[in-house]
């Protein structure tokens, strides 16, 4: 009773919507990891436990790298999550990410700018690239009533072929003997934060700032309110006089821009070898960052601040996953875990409530007794 007056009430917290989505995310993560462990047991029983230990704790050794690789994931997660809030499923974050990557790389190689202006302009170019590829599905959805899922999937392929062709045909960017892009000039690389043993760059700070900016847009502006209202009930929002079509296009453009910045962050980041940047290999494969962004967004409940944490978590297990190759596994194990997490996230909330109901039906009385005892202890 005293607790309630203080405003700190455990019951109110556990019953809140945020908490139940948090437990749902935990549940999905647990099931994903458990499934990954089973796969490892099937593939190689004798090394499964040591491999799983790498997944769980391997990332601790490379905290800097966790944030280094989390940076683009935060951006694609924000892209998917922002569109989700309006009820749009942006499965095209991969294509937007690739376009952003290409625009950033183009400015990095072909424009002669000096000083910090170079990398800042490169990031902005990446954003523009992503926005173009977000704008197209938005227009198709708003004006022509074409489902954004199909459009964005098609543009994933179109973007991938387009970017790979443009890079391969440009000798200034593409090193054909290595089948990779060359190292970007140093002025276009993101400044490193100087953390020992890692190249984590200013990108992570910018990504967090962008997440906060999106949070403000969603919670404190009329546009954000309209966007969420449309997500809850499209027809009611339209009836209330909100401009649905304009909002769809705007949302997809912002979403695409976020994914594009993610692509820019990924390619402009400095890599382990001094003076070099990350490189891109044009081999006609769709970037996975956009699909991982779906998992990030679902785990973060499409909340910009939650996405920072879920992206860090996914990046953390990915770092651990690369270490499993020490005991004969392959990093793809993490992609499996991520896919299973998405699968269960799709109905984790429902599963959660049904399990809770089952537990209350079965152990309801016991639980009540326990809580009374706990309360008694609390009073003492």
């Amino acid at each position, binding site marked *: 009773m005293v607790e309630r007056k203080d405003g700190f009430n455990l019951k109110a917290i556990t019953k809140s919507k945020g908490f139940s989505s948090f437990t749902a995310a935990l549940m999905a993560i647990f099931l994903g990891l458990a499934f990954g462990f089973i*796969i490892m047991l099937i*593939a*190689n029983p004798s090394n499964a436990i040591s491999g799983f230990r790498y997944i769980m704790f391997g990332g601790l050794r490379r905290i800097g790298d966790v944030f280094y690789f989390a940076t683009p994931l935060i951006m694609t997660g924000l892209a998917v999550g922002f569109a989700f809030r309006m009820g749009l*499923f942006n*499965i095209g974050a991969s294509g937007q990410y690739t376009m952003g990557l290409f625009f950033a790389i183009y400015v990095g190689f072909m424009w002669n700018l000096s000083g910090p202006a170079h990398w800042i302009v490169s990031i902005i170019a990446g954003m523009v690239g992503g926005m173009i590829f977000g704008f197209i599905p938005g227009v*198709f959805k708003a004006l*022509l*009533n*074409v*489902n954004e*899922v*199909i*459009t964005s*999937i*098609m*543009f994933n*392929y*179109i973007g991938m*072929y*387009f970017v*790979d*062709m443009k890079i391969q*045909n440009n000798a200034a960017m593409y090193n054909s003997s290595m089948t990779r892009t060359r190292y970007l000039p140093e002025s276009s690389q993101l400044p490193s934060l100087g953390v020992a043993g890692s190249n984590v760059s200013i990108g992570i700070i910018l990504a967090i700032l962008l997440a906060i900016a999106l949070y403000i847009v969603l919670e404190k502006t009329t546009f954000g309110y309209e966007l969420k209202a449309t997500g809850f009930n499209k027809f009611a929002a339209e009836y209330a006089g909100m401009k649905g079509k304009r909002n769809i296009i705007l949302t997809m453009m912002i979403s695409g821009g976020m994914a594009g910045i993610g692509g820019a962050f990924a390619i402009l980041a400095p890599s382990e070898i001094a003076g070099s940047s990350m490189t891109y290999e044009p081999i*006609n*494969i769709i970037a996975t960052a956009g*699909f991982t962004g*779906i998992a990030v967004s*679902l785990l973060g409940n499409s909340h910009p601040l939650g996405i920072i944490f879920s992206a860090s978590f996914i990046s953390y297990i990915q770092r651990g996953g690369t270490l499993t190759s020490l005991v*004969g*596994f*392959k990093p*793809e*194990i993490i*992609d*499996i875990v*991520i*896919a*299973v997490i*998405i*699968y269960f*996230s*799709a*109905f984790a909330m*429902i*599963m959660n409530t049904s399990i809770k109901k089952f537990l209350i039906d079965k152990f309801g009385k016991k639980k009540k007794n326990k809580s009374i005892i706990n309360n008694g202890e609390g009073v003492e």
Partner: protein
Amino acid sequence: MELINYLIQNTLPVAVPLLLVALGGMFSERSGVINIALEGIMLFGAFFGALFVLVVQNSGMTPQTILLLGMVIAAVSGLIYSLLLAFAAVNMKANQVITGTALNMLIPAAILLFSKMFFGSDGVTTNISFYIRKMPFLGSIPILGPMFFQNTYLTVIIGFIFLGISTVLLYKTKFGLRLRACGEHPHAADSVGINVYVMRYAGVSLSGILAGMGGFFYSVGVMDGNVSGHTGVAGFGFLALAVMIFGQWKPGKIVLAALFFAFLRTLAYSVSLIPFLYNLGIDQTYYKMLPYLATMFVLALTSKKSRAPKAEGIPYDKSSR
């Protein structure tokens, strides 16, 4: 004439996977479940089909027998994998698009993991040829013989048989009528005693069978019997969805749409053989984008008067009447 024969001979083996998978998508959506997992189901079926081929390729069976048995294996694996979607969509009332995306992501990763660990490669590589130079009797028919029954695969004939079966099943049987009712108005169907859950399971299972087969036929007719976890089925599952929408969820129109898309793709990969297109000097990559661009163009034209099943994508809840 040579060129026309060549284009037809190469279009048909590409069209058949698209046709089968689009028919699968049609059954699923007509029952009310959006099946975006077609891509994953295809790859799952293709993987197990190819694994079967790898095991029996030296056992002395004729290639065409192996193809038929592999097709059955692929269909069964596709069915099993599609049950994951049916469970999430029907029992758990989950978001069908997210579930489908998860199923699409799972399979390439799993194939890469197992292939890298056990074969040291990106997928399954077989060394058997299912190619038919000339079919007996049919191949000797003048004009039509060289077009349809020479330099081809058995998959083409099987594909068109299943087109016939699907059409009859959807329009001429009690089951087909009930299935369509569940996709249009599940509450009405329920009120006359049709079990909506069972029908939706059936729709998704049929899509699993057809997509699994389609995936195996893709690996036979397009990839020479191999399966790669990296390139997967190159977006054929998604193209099949576009084929289905373009075909207005009707078997007769779906087959035309599948042929159209397959023709575009064949054209893209044989530009160097067609002097007219080759002399234009356009980068070949643009031709590879053509099927995807055509999809967008076609959808933009047709979506205003879309005939999509009314209840697709909405989980059926008995109590929300």
